[in-house]
């Protein structure tokens, strides 16, 4: 090794002692676009074909066709980021990988298994998870849960199996929390949905370890439309983690998933997401929770990837004394327009919500915090506190805050705090005077800014988030 290489080697070794080194390549692994079936475009025949391939009952096909009609009638939203680049004729609405659903990683085809290996899923499963689901393009290729949970009556399976095996529960809840008329991309989702996870936690059952579903989109010019339906029954408790990523392509990919959460009386659900879509992704996802009496719904969300995101999880506090907390961070780099936020409806007395949002933008990236807080007339003695903070790393990046507060009763405590700031040259100088490079100084400031969010994540994800921050800041110095 000559001295120059030795120096580089030493630098790298040194970096590893700070945070575990990460290789962007793990997100960018492109497997061959090798599929059993790939269906492009959107029309009635295609929707019928997807339903037929899945061997679905008629009631599900009816929902799909109704949704398709709704999709055709609804307009594109005009109040947010520009979506004109999206052309549904170019998007594959269904991509069936060359794999069936497996309950052992050994049976998952080599290239697909390798991808999930590199993303660390099987390892996390062994160490810290109660169950794992893994979706590749349109279908779930792996699902498994620990024995003792099966014995306690916990159900964790792919959505197709749920439609087949638990039709009554699915019928009662599917597209009921999120109505198909909600917006154009919910209608699209309901028309072509495929994959996703179904969870049922019986009364009083508390899971000590999280369940995790990971969604990987490999196929270029395609969409992912997974449906996640979770029911946490009375007094039960669950932490669910959702991860998503895709390799980078030149053409647009689309993600229009839907998450429906039912948190029954006295139950607890925490829903954590680390989203690291590639920067050609339109992420138009919809997530809602209905929260029962004295129940609690917590959201933790890290949005890093995608070209455009429109994502506003929502809690509907229907039960007296119900609570919700939203903790979210959004990081937009060059060419990214991430429009994120939170919605909450206080619909019963003594309900409370805490919203804590942070955003970081750099290299001309744009972050918008958009929120809705509605406190209905019947929601006496409710509390809501909102805090949103934005950090811009340069003069060309954007940050906006668009809160809507609709408060229909006087008997509430409501507070809203918003801060928008630029990274300070003085702070960078201070850190550099302690031997940190400009890059490291910025990364440290951003990590510190993000800490209140990352500390809410399971430790491996906090590490991953810090790594993503470091990655995003690499080469950020012009």
């Amino acid at each position: 090794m000559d001295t120059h290489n030795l120096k580089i080697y030493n630098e790298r070794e040194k970096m590893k002692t700070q945070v575990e080194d990460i290789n962007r390549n793990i997100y960018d692994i492109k497997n061959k676009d090798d599929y059993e079936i790939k269906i492009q475009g959107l029309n009635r025949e295609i929707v019928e074909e997807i339903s037929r391939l899945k061997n679905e009952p008629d009631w599900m096909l009816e929902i799909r066709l109704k949704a398709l009609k709704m999709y055709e009638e609804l307009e594109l939203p005009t109040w947010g980021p520009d979506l004109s680049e999206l052309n549904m004729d170019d998007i594959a609405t269904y991509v069936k990988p060359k794999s069936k659903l497996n309950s052992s990683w050994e049976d998952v085809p080599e290239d697909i298994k390798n991808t999930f290996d590199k993303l660390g899923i099987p390892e996390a499963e062994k160490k810290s998870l109660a169950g794992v689901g893994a979706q590749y393009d349109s279908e779930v290729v792996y699902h498994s849960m620990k024995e003792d949970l099966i014995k306690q009556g916990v159900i964790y399976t792919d959505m197709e199996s749920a439609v087949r095996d638990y039709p009554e529960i699915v019928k009662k809840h599917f597209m009921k929390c999120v109505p198909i008329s909600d917006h154009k991309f919910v209608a699209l989702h309901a028309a072509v949905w495929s994959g996703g996870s179904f969870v049922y936690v019986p009364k009083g059952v508390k899971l000590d370890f999280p369940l995790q579903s990971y969604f990987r989109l490999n196929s270029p010019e395609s969409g992912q439309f997974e449906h996640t339906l979770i029911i946490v029954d009375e007094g039960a408790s669950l932490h669910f983690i959702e991860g998503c990523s895709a390799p980078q392509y030149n053409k647009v990919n689309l993600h229009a998933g839907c998450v429906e959460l039912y948190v029954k009386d006295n139950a607890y659900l925490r829903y954590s997401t680390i989203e690291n879509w590639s920067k050609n992704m339109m992420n138009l996802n919809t997530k809602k929770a209905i929260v029962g009496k004295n129940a609690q719904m917590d959201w933790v969300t890290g949005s890093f990837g995608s070209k455009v995101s429109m994502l506003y999880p929502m809690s509907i506090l229907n039960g007296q004394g119900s609570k919700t907390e939203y903790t979210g961070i959004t990081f937009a780099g060059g060419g990214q327009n991430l429009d994120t936020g939170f919605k909450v409806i206080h619909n019963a007395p003594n309900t409370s919500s805490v919203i804590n949002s942070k955003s970081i933008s750099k290299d001309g990236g744009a972050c918008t915090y958009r929120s809705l807080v509605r406190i209905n007339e019947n929601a006496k003695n409710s509390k809501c506190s909102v805090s949103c903070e934005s950090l811009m790393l340069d003069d060309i990046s954007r940050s906006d805050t668009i809160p809507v507060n609709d408060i229909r009763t006087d008997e509430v405590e409501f507070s809203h705090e918003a801060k928008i700031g630029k990274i300070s040259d003085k702070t960078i100088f201070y850190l550099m005077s302690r031997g940190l490079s400009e890059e490291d100084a910025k990364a440290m400031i951003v990590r510190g800014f993000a800490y209140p969010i990352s500390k809410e994540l399971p430790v491996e994800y906090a590490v991953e988030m810090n790594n993503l921050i470091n990655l995003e800041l690499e080469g950020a110095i012009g």
Partner: protein
Amino acid sequence: MENKLLEIKDLYVNAGEKEILKGLNLNIKKGEVHVIMGPNGAGKSTLANVILNNPEYKKISGQIDFEGENINDLSTDKIAKKGIFMSFQMPEEIPGISTINFLRTAKNNITNKPVKIFEFKDSVKKFSEELNMNQKLIERNLNVGFSGGEKKKNEILQMLILNPKLAILDETDSGLDVDAIKIVSKGIEMYKSSENAVLIITHNTRILNHLDVDYVHVLINGKIVKTGTAELAKEIDENGYTQFKNL
């Protein structure tokens, strides 16, 4: 020659369009303690910042050498790695980063190798106790919610941990009560050796009651107009800066 640390030759510096330093010369050798005094606006803090190449200031001409090497164009982090430390007049607050983790990152960067955790923790504990710092501060976010005195002590702690060749203390004594000044002086005494040097920038003489200094320089209007011993500080204490204004 070997004892030479900092050598500043005919330095002119602007902040924006404004001329701040106008032909400043200064030599500091190992083992020496220098004090720069001067009225507000004379350019004292500019001098500290410009040695560390703060991009807010622009060198128009002149040269800064450290151990015989021109450091005019080195970035701040590289200068820090050469062994120059600056204690800030107003230390920055960094939310979300604990003081101990920050110290460790700084030490790793300065020494260019990973610190041994236990040794490191021991020395942090030892020095912070000497400085009468509440141990809980070390776990708290860097400077966030620290009192003025706590921030200054934290700067001295960093100096002791990073152990630079040249420590520049920019108004470290300002705003401190008598007890805090004693503790800060004690920190400087602990640091001082025949192998390093201290440059104290101050506008009052109180800290000099607790420290032995070799040179006192009077900085007025961007230039050092007089250099003397500790006696000079006493004179300033009694008669102010007016006497030097016409030099």
